């Protein structure tokens, strides 16, 4: 029977199928994309690890003496302790490619085997001795070399932290093991040659450890940790994967939340449509009941029918989701890379069962839930009531119960927000978000009632008698009107929520940048296409910049990722006093750090450092450095946004003393008052011909930072488009259902003397009224969710502390789009209604 009913009314059910398909597609795409992005990053880690069970590091790129490798090799249970250097470089002739440099002791066969490579099979070199004897030797991936027409013996220029350097291709790598994970963007060098370009002679930044077979890895790790100098730590590559999974879980939650909101909108459409379909079938159901079919059986058959509809939606939505996932994967991977400052890997979408099962289950669940209540209501009607020809919405009563539910929901939202504040757990914030979405839907019906005194006269004023008809038509089925407004509210509200979040992140980043060091020019070797990857440069760049005509003062800044108490943070080391010509007459810029921090006696920490660790001004923290433990007092709080875990800001002198690192990431340049800033920029480019630098004006630097955030949130547009499609379907469905229900009324209107254009205007006005009601709900939901996430949930989930900023222009644009979408949705039913033959319409049952 369900199949017969569904087949007979498939046209009525198509919008429901399509809406569920869109929701399922979005959930599927978000989950597949998040898994694929995570897998791409972890594949790189896995492949790079090879047989390596443990790694010794000093934070992100921190260098330490190569003798540490010998110390580790002496630990019982260690089979291989391979010194390594890793970094990034760029081909001198390309702005868009970033190469991962992987430097091992090529002359040590055991070290090479630790990465799953064999010289000869995977690594073809003409002369291994030359490879490690000549410091300009590099090994390229065969596909990368072939693309550039390079072979063994050819030269290639790479831009490294010490500048542009020529290298000779001494070997070619086959795409196995570690190479495969990096695609073609991998350069292998000898570790000693890499020290000269990426750290300094005698200093490495990693020791890779292979544990002897049979030895417990944990015990060996403990032994290594005891033997290491302070500031170095040992971890398993799998632990880094766990860390990555933890930090990417936050992004995955956000993506899934967006997908679920779209599915919630689809649920509302399905609920609305199924209620109408079941109500229209009351006569048939009454016959069933009159014949003797039990109410429970009727309910089950109706629910089975909805499952068929859900199954059709799932069947359509899953392939759509896979396609959408492929489209969105580059955006998701970029967002992950930008957010967590990782090199974007080559990500491929794999269709995995858990994602499909999740999306399918949610789609079927939405269909089931959407049908349960309407089916229960119509199955409970007595045959007499169902057979009576009454133009009454069968869904009546329960108004008092609904107010109780609304009250309970409001209390639950307040409780969840309070619990989030008290426990600092993002889970309560997520729960509050779900409850806000439900509350938005439940607020629609009272809103329709509240709007009546305002909208009715407004419509009459604007549109005359047609306006009166539009409003009373919507009031004819307040349930359907409320559900349509709810669909719009939830859908548009989710778009507004994401826009507010993106704007707040962007403005917070810009404000943090603007409140920090402010110079005339910002010089760095950061690679723009990698977004946020910092490529350090030796500090002699600062002296070179000071020598450029027109430069008054220069200050260097080193930024890197570090670990503190087992969690990632960022270090921001700044030259407090911009150095310039001591004899210069114009005053140099004031000190960039307050006295205690400038002297190295204290540090500043960021607002999210304070949030996550519960420390404050006056407290002392102990940093583990390559030179040992460094206890420092907190002197102030900054708004820096370098790391989700927080930032510690110190003087660069203190940093260099403890981290043995004389590189800088950024150089700030102040020009003389009489100098032309653009001319100074040109002069710097000319003076630094051998090293490609990015030199930005201050305003350009701010724009660049904002652009990276916009890239990270680029996916919002794709989500918004899909949500608007769901909204379009829902609104069109409501208006079409309303026209179908009122066929005879429309016939009567035409019989009395209304023209076709009156009918068209009436239906279009109904669309505008729905858009207005939906926008009111969307504004409330969007602002509520945006405020909740900016102030509480996002900092707990992702780690960043934000200020609330509302993109009013975007909000207005969304409003205009919503009205446009609703008008577009109203056009087909409007013209259909206008084309009714009055005589035929009057006979409609």
């Amino acid at each position, binding site marked *: 029977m369900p199949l017969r009913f569904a087949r007979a009314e498939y046209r009525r059910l198509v919008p429901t199928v399509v809406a569920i398909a869109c929701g399922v597609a979005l959930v599927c795409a978000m989950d597949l994309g998040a898994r694929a992005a995570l897998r791409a990053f972890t594949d790189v880690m896995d492949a790079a690890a090879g047989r390596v069970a443990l790694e010794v590091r000093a934070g992100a790129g921190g260098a330490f003496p190569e003798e540490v490798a010998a110390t580790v090799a002496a630990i019982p249970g260690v089979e291989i302790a391979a010194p390594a250097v890793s970094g990034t470089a760029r081909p001198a002739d390309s702005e868009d490619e970033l190469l991962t440099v992987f430097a091992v002791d090529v002359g040590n066969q055991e070290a090479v085997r630790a990465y799953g490579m064999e010289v000869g099979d995977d690594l073809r070199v003409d002369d291994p001795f030359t490879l490690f004897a000549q410091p300009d030797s590099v090994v390229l991936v065969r596909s990368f070399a072939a693309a550039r027409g390079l072979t063994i013996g050819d030269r290639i220029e790479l831009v490294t932290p010490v500048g542009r350097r020529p290298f000779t291709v001494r070997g070619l790598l086959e795409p196995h093991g570690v190479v495969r994970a990096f695609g073609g963007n991998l350069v292998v060098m000898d570790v000693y040659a890499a020290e000269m370009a990426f750290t300094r002679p005698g200093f490495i930044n990693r020791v890779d450890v292979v544990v002897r077979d049979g030895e417990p890895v944990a015990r060996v790790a403990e032994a290594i940790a005891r033997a290491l100098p302070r500031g170095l730590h040992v971890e398993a590559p799998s632990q880094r994967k766990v860390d990555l999974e933890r930090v990417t879980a936050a992004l995955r939650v956000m993506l899934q939340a967006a997908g679920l909101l779209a599915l919630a909108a689809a649920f509302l459409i399905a609920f609305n449509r199924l209620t109408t379909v079941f109500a229209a079938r009351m006569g048939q159901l009454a016959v069933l009941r009159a014949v003797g079919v039990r109410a429970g059986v009727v309910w089950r058959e109706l629910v089975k029918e909805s499952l068929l509809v859900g199954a059709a939606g799932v069947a359509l939505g899953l392939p759509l989701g896979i396609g959408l996932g492929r489209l969105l994967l580059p955006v998701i991977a970029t967002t992950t890379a930008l957010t967590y400052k990782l090199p974007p890997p080559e990500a491929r979408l794999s269709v995995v069962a858990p994602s499909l099962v999740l999306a399918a289950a949610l789609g079927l669940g939405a269909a089931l839930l959407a049908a349960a209540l309407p089916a229960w209501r119509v199955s409970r009607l007595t045959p007499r009531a169902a057979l009576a020809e009454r133009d009454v919405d069968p869904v009546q009563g329960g108004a008092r119960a609904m107010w109780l539910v609304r009250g309970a929901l409001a209390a639950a939202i307040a409780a969840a927000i309070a619990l989030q504040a008290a426990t600092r757990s993002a889970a309560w914030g997520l729960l509050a978000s779900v409850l806000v979405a439900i509350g938005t839907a439940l607020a629609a019906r009272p809103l329709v009632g509240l709007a009546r005194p305002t909208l009715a006269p407004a419509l009459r004023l604007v549109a005359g*008698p047609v306006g009166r008809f539009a409003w009373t038509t919507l009031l004819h089925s307040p349930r359907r009107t409320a559900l349509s407004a709810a669909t719009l509210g939830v859908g548009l509200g989710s778009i507004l929520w994401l826009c507010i979040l993106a704007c707040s992140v962007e403005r917070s980043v810009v404000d943090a940048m603007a409140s920090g060091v402010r110079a005339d020019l910002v010089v760095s070797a950061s690679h723009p296409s990698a977004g946020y990857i910092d490529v350090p440069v030796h500090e002699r760049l600062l002296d070179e910049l000071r020598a450029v005509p027109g430069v008054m003062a220069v200050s260097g800044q080193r930024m890197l990722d570090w670990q503190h108490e087992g969690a990632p943070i960022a270090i921001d080391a700044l030259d407090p006093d911009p150095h310039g010509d001591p004899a210069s007459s114009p005053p140099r810029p004031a000190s960039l750090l307050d006295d205690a921090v400038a002297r190295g006696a204290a540090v500043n920490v960021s607002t999210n450092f304070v949030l996550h660790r519960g420390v404050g001004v006056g407290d002392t923290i102990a940093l583990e450095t390559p030179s040992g433990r460094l206890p420092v007092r907190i002197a102030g709080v900054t708004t820096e946004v370098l790391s989700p875990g927080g930032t510690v800001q110190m003087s660069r002198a203190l940093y260099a003393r403890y981290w043995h690192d004389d590189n800088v990431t950024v150089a700030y340049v102040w020009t003389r008052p009489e100098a032309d800033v653009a001319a100074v920029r040109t002069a710097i480019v000319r003076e630094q011909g051998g090293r490609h630098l990015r030199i930005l004006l201050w305003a350009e630097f701010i724009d660049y930072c904002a652009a990276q955030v916009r890239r990270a949130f680029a996916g919002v547009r794709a989500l918004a488009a899909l949500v608007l499609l769901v909204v379009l379907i829902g609104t069109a469905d409501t208006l079409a259902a309303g026209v179908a229900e009122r066929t005879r*009324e429309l*016939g009567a209107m*035409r019989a009395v*003397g209304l023209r076709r254009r009156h009918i068209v205007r009436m239906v279009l006005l109904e669309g505008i009224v729905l858009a207005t009601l939906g926008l009111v709900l969307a504004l409330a939901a969007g602002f509520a969710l945006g405020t909740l996430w900016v102030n509480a949930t996002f900092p707990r989930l992702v780690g960043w502390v934000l200020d609330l900023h509302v993109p009013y222009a975007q909000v207005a644009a969304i409003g205009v789009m919503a009205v446009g979408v609703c008008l577009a949705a109203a056009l087909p039913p409007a013209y259909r209604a206008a084309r009714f033959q009055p*005589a035929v319409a*009057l006979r409609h049952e």
Partner: protein
Amino acid sequence: MSGDAEVVLSGVRKRYGTGPQAVVAVNDVALRVADGEFVALTGPSGSGKSTLLNLIGGLDTPDDGRVEVGGRNLALLSDDVRSDLRLQHIGFVFQSFNLFPTFTALENVAWPLEFLGCGWRRARERAAEVLVQVGLGSIGARRPADLSGGEQQRVAVARALVTEPHLLLADEPTGNLDSSTGDAILDLLQRLNAHRKLTIVLVTHNPSAAARAHRVVELCDGRLVREHHP
């Protein structure tokens, strides 16, 4: 439109469907209704009564023949002009009342006046007057669901009269009413015809209802088979 509401049908045919399934609802009907006349169209179900009424009201157009109302050939008029004709000069009363459930009785009567350019306040005043004329002066604030069948039909008659039409077309107006209520409606129609000289064409299958008219036209299988004066 000229002051009279004369209705002239000549050689009117109306067919629904195509091919072997086609049904000839009205077959070569010629009929004249004089200004101020009360004519009843009777016949069994499927005889073409309602189709003929729809053709007279411009709700449908004939496949052949002419339908003239007030001297105007409806087939030559655009849909908008036919709509204006109905709004200004023709009133319709339906068997199933076709009142708007979310409007009050007063609003149901008043709304056609708004489309004639009358302000809403004036429209309501006029509607109240018409409701009094049909004997429903006190129910203006009630909704159709709160009215009896007879009261609803009176409201429908009031709606048809509020624009002061020259021609009233009533399609089985007593079909859903009990006999005494139906009689009351028919009494109303008779009074309107007698006092206002309102031209009325009434479709009914009830001989006693038809007997109220000046002339009864009998249809069968789409053809006019008999005319007589009751």
